[in-house]
C-alpha cells in the first residue's frame, strides 16, 4: 500500500509504451510519414526549427511526429539534440537584401521598388472550413499545379511587379528602409564589426544589462505566444512605440562560410527566413534629432507572426538606450528575457507535478502548529470553526485527532 505511492521503473517503461501507442493512434489509419509532415505541415516545421534553433526540416518533422504534434515538446527534442552537435565554424552574416523573395510587403509605402508580393499568405483568405480538403480521394493536386503555372506576376500588387518566378526573385531587392537612408529619416543600422564577437546564449549565460545581439538571440528563440502577448501589450499602451510594418519579407537566402584556408566565401546552401523591419516614431533627444527608429525580427522558416511580435518587443527593449521611460513589462529586459524561453517556462511550470511531498509535509507541520497555537490563544473563535470543519469531512476529524496527540 505504501509502495504504491512511489513510482517504479516498470511504471515509467509502461508510460513510454503508452506514449508510443497514443502517438500511433488507430492502426486502421496509415502511419504518417516524416516527409508528409515536412511537406504538408510546413508552418509547424518552421516554428519548431525557429524556436528549436536548428535549421533542419527533416529532424523538425521527425520531432513533430514523435511529439504527437505537441510543438513545444518537438522544440525540446530538437534543442536537446542540438546541444550534442559539434561546432564546425561560423557562417558569414546572411544578407537578406540578396534574398530570393517569395513574399515581400510594406505597410508604409503603396509602391516600392521590386513591388509588393503577397506570396503564400493567409491574410486575404476567408476563414471558412474547406470541406473539399476533407473529401477522400479528391484530386488536390489540381490546385497545386494551378499555383505553379500561375505567372508569379499575378501575386504582385500594383504595377511595378517585375514578374519573377513564384519560387523567388533572383535579382537583388533592396530593403525598403535602406531606401529612406538618404534623408536620414531612419536610424542607420550599426556597421558589422567583425572584431566584436557576437553573443551566444547557448554557450554563455545571459548577463544583464544585455546588449542588443544577446537580446535578439533570446527573442529569436523565444516562445511565439509570449512575444505575441508582449508585442500586443505595447500596442495597447503598455510601452507604446508607434510601430509601422516597414517591410516584411520571406524567401531563401544563401548561407556562406569563409574557410580560413580559402579566404573567400563559399555558398553551402540556402535557408528560408522571414524578416520584419518595424519603423517606430522617435521624438529625438538632446543628441539625436527626431527620426524613425527600428525594431527587428528574424526567424528560420516562414514565421511571420513571430517576427512581427519580435520586432515590436525588440523596439520596446531599446527604451533605455533611447532614453525613454522604462515602465511597461515589454520594456523590462529582465522580465522579458528571463521569461521568454518556452522550454524554461514549460519546464518550470510543469515541474510542479513532480513530487513535492517533503516541502508539503514541512508546510503541513507548520500550518498544524500555527492552527494549534491560534486555537490555544482564542479557543472560542477557532474552536468553533474547527468543529464546523470537522463535521464536514471525516478526514479532518482524524487530522485534529492527530494534532491533539
Amino acid at each position: 500500500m505504501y509502495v504504491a505511492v512511489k513510482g517504479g521503473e516498470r511504471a515509467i517503461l509502461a508510460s513510454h509504451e503508452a506514449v508510443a501507442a497514443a502517438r500511433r493512434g488507430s492502426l486502421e489509419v496509415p502511419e504518417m510519414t516524416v516527409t508528409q509532415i515536412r511537406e504538408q505541415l510546413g508552418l509547424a516545421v518552421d516554428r519548431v526549427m525557429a524556436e528549436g534553433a536548428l535549421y533542419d526540416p527533416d529532424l523538425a518533422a521527425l520531432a513533430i511526429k514523435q511529439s504527437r504534434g505537441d510543438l513545444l515538446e518537438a522544440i525540446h527534442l530538437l534543442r536537446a539534440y542540438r546541444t550534442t552537435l559539434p561546432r564546425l565554424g561560423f557562417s558569414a552574416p546572411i544578407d537578406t537584401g540578396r534574398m530570393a523573395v517569395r513574399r515581400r510587403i510594406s505597410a508604409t509605402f503603396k509602391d516600392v521598388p521590386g513591388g509588393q508580393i503577397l506570396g503564400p499568405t493567409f491574410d486575404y483568405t476567408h476563414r471558412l472550413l474547406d470541406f473539399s480538403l476533407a473529401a477522400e480521394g479528391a484530386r488536390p493536386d489540381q490546385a497545386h499545379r494551378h499555383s505553379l503555372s500561375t505567372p508569379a506576376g499575378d501575386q504582385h500588387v500594383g504595377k511595378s511587379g517585375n514578374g519573377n518566378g513564384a519560387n523567388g526573385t533572383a535579382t537583388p531587392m533592396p530593403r525598403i528602409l535602406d531606401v529612406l537612408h538618404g534623408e536620414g529619416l531612419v536610424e542607420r543600422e550599426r556597421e558589422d564589426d567583425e572584431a566584436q564577437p557576437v553573443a551566444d546564449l547557448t554557450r554563455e549565460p545571459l548577463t544583464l544589462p544585455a546588449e542588443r545581439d544577446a537580446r535578439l538571440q533570446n527573442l529569436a528563440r523565444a516562445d511565439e505566444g509570449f512575444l505575441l502577448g508582449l508585442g500586443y501589450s505595447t500596442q495597447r499602451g503598455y510601452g507604446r512605440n508607434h510601430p509601422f510594418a516597414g517591410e516584411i519579407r520571406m524567401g531563401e537566402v544563401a548561407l556562406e562560410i569563409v574557410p580560413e584556408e580559402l579566404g573567400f566565401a563559399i555558398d553551402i546552401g540556402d535557408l528560408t527566413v522571414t524578416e520584419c523591419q518595424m519603423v517606430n516614431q522617435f521624438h529625438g533627444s538632446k543628441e539625436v534629432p527626431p527620426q524613425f527608429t527600428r525594431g527587428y525580427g528574424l526567424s528560420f522558416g516562414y514565421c511571420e507572426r513571430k517576427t512581427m511580435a519580435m520586432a515590436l518587443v525588440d523596439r520596446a527593449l531599446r527604451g533605455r538606450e533611447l532614453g525613454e521611460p522604462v515602465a511597461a513589462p515589454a520594456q523590462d529586459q529582465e522580465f522579458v528575457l528571463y521569461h521568454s524561453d518556452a522550454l524554461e517556462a514549460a519546464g518550470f511550470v510543469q515541474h510542479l507535478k513532480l513530487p513535492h511531498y517533503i516541502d508539503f509535509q514541512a508546510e503541513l507541520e507548520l500550518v498544524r502548529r500555527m492552527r494549534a497555537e491560534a486555537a490555544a490563544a482564542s479557543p472560542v473563535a477557532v474552536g468553533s470553526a474547527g468543529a464546523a470543519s470537522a463535521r464536514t469531512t471525516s478526514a479532518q476529524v482524524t487530522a485534529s485527532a492527530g494534532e491533539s496527540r
Partner: protein
Amino acid sequence: MKPVESVGAAARPAGMSDTAVTGTPHLMEGYNFAYLDEQTKRMVRRSILKAVAIPGHQVPFGSREMPLAYGWGTGGIQVTASILGPDDVLKVIDQGADDTTNAVSIRRLFERTAGVATTDHTEDATIIQTRHRVPEKPLRERQILVYQVPIPEPLRFVEPRELETRRLHALNEYDLMHLKLYEDIAKHGHIATTYDYPVLVHGRYLMSPSPIPKFDNPKMHRNPALQLFGAGREKRIYAVPPYTEVRSLDFEDHPFEIQHWEQQCEICGSGESFLDEVILDDHGRRMFVCSDTDYCRTRRDTAAAGQAAASPRRAAPEEA
C-alpha cells in the same frame, strides 16, 4: 573529479537508437560518456572549481539544453555528468527516496549514457544526486552531494531583479532577508519558512540550500562531503566545500529550530528522521514513514538481524 575518458563518438546518432555497444548492454550509442561533450564538462568543472573557491557564491555557467525538461533536475544532472568518472558509484534520490519516478529516470539516464554502477546505499555511493533532501546517514569525506536547485537566488522572493540581488550579494547586504524573517515573527510569533530556509555560508554569502526541509539544514554545517548545487534553467552553480560553516539565519531570541514529529516511523520506528505522511484510505487514515528509504530499510534490516540473534519482541532503535 578525475579526468574522464571519452567513450562515445560525437557523431550524429542514427535515429537516436539505443542499441547496445560492446560491453555494457544498456549503453546508448552515439552520445559521449555521461551525455555531455567533454568541452561542456570542462566548462562546468571550471565553474564548479570557482564555486568551491568562493563558498556559497553563485557562479553563472553556460547551462546546456538537456534531454530532460527544465525543472526535472537539469542543473544537478549537468554537475553530475561533469564530475562522473567510470569508477564512480551513483545514487539518485528524490524526496529522500531512490524509487521516486524522477530519481529512477535520472539514474536510468546515467546508466544508459555512462554505464556507471548505481546504488541505493548512501554509504556505498561516491556521488549522490538529490532533490529536496539530505540523506539521514552522515556523509563522509570523498563523497559528493549534488543538489538540484530550482531558484538559486535566496533573495529572489524578496527582490525579483537579478541586477539588484547581485548588487546586494556584492555589498553583503542581507537586511531584506532578516526583515522578512522578522516580519514572520511579528505576524506569526515564529519564522514561517519551513523549506529552502536561507543559510549564511562561511560567514559571507547568503545561500539557498535548495528546497530541502529546514530539518536538513544542520546537516550541511561542517559536512565532511563536498556539496555542489546545480540550477540548469537559472544557469548557476554554487558549492559548499567540506567542513564549511553553514549557519541558518535566526535571531538571538528566536533561535533556528527544526521540525519535530510526535509520531515515529511506522516501519522502522525512528523518531529522528524526517517523516512522510502517507494517506492510507479515503477516510483520511494516515501513517508516518521515513522519507529516506535507504535509512529506513537499513534500520529495519538491522532490527530484523538483531531479532533473529536475540529474538526480542522489538529491537531498540539505534542512534541516528
